[in-house]
């Protein structure tokens, strides 16, 4: 921008000073000899202005092109790249955090599931065992009652047998007694009927 406007501004100064430059050329060598004793401001020695301005414009134009074409775009892009890289790294980190959270949630869920399944299995097993126990109990009970019935029947049988034996023994005993007391008078059938009547 300035590199366009500057030469016009410079041109004025230069044009004015250039004449003075050539004119004062002779005087310069004299001034140069007395250089060590310079008392005024060398900055106001307008004879050197055109040269300084000329080189300044060149320096600034060169610097401007170096900066605007090479240095600034490069630094700008590097900063931009770094910004992007940091941004993407942060994004990735957030992504990883999210993934970790998801994994944790999945793990929690699996744990919950496993726990409930374990409980289920335990309950099932318990029920199965209970069933088996119940079946065994029922079987044992039925067997016991069966045996009891058999035993009872046997006992009843024995008792009946015993009762019958008792009658027979009683009749025999009575017949023997009668025989002893009244020999020949006893009728076997009569004794037996009397014993049976007595036993009722």
């Amino acid at each position, binding site marked *: 921008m300035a590199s366009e406007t500057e030469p016009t501004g410079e041109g004025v100064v230069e044009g004015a000073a250039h004449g003075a430059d050539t004119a004062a050329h002779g005087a310069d060598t004299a001034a140069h000899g007395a250089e*060590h004793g310079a008392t005024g401001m060398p900055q106001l020695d307008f004879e050197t202005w055109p040269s300084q301005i000329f080189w300044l414009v060149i320096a600034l134009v060169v610097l401007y092109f170096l900066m605007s074409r090479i240095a600034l775009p490069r630094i700008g892009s590097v900063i931009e790249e770094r910004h992007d890289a940091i941004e993407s790294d942060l994004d990735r980190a957030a992504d990883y955090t999210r993934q970790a959270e998801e994994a944790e949630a999945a793990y929690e869920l699996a744990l919950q599931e496993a726990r409930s399944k374990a409980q289920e299995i335990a309950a099932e097993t318990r029920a199965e065992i209970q069933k088996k126990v119940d079946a065994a109990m029922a079987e044992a009970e039925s067997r016991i009652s069966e045996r009891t019935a058999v035993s009872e029947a046997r006992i009843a049988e024995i008792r009946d047998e015993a009762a019958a034996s008792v009658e027979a023994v009683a009749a025999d005993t009575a017949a023997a007694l009668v025989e002893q007391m009244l020999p020949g008078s006893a009728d076997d059938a009569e004794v037996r009927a009397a014993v049976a009547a007595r036993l009722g």
Partner: protein
Amino acid sequence: MAAGAEGEGGFAIHPMDQFIVKPLFGDGGVGLFTVSNATLWMAITVAVVSLLLIAGTRGRALVPSRVQSMAELLYGFVRKMVTDVAGEKAAPYFPYIFTLFVFILFANLLALIPYSYTVTAQFAVTVPLALAVFISVTVIGFMKHGTHFLSLFWPTDAPVALRPVLCIIELISYFVRPVSHSIRLGANLMAGHAVLKVFAGFAGPLGIGAVLPIAMMVGVFGLEVLVAVIQAYVFAILTCVYLNDALNLHGHSAHDEDEHHSDYIGVHPDSHAAH
């Protein structure tokens, strides 16, 4: 330094000799194309800036080297200054302001090397720099706003009766800008370097007593480093302020570093009374 050679006859101090523009080759006058010490130090300035900002960033490293981070720091600093002061609209002029800033900054800093030459202590350098800013800012103002740009000189928030007076003040302050802009930089650098030279001149003939002026020189040198940076910064930020005026007229909240806005302070109570 020259004082040491002819120190016999008391204090022969020539603090201004360092500002003489001399041809590098031959002994003649300084013509338009003469390669002088000014040429040399401008070239060194451009070379050093290029070294830092181009060679230093050659790696384009995502994790910057020391030199590259300096370059990036410089870039970020000027970028922020331009957008803070003159707004986003000033972004196209960033390379221009950046060029001015780094040129002045490095010319100032390189001038602190002993036996070097101070490019920016020359009004032949600072006046064209300031004029370049003044002219380009004025051109930009007229290009952006046409004749409406002239409203910059017509303070509408002041009482009507005061406006012509303020307009004259505004106009004067506007045209004084390049003067103050250039003298501020050149005079600061010139004064500092002249003071350094004066103390150096004292140090030569004093023998063991030279400790005192040398101590002073160390102090002044530190101050000059500060001045070198601050003057480059001031030049650049004023450029931004002027650019802001041209781009946004009175819109954007400019940093009122310049003297001309202080005129408003006395006027505000009046303008409130008028309403």
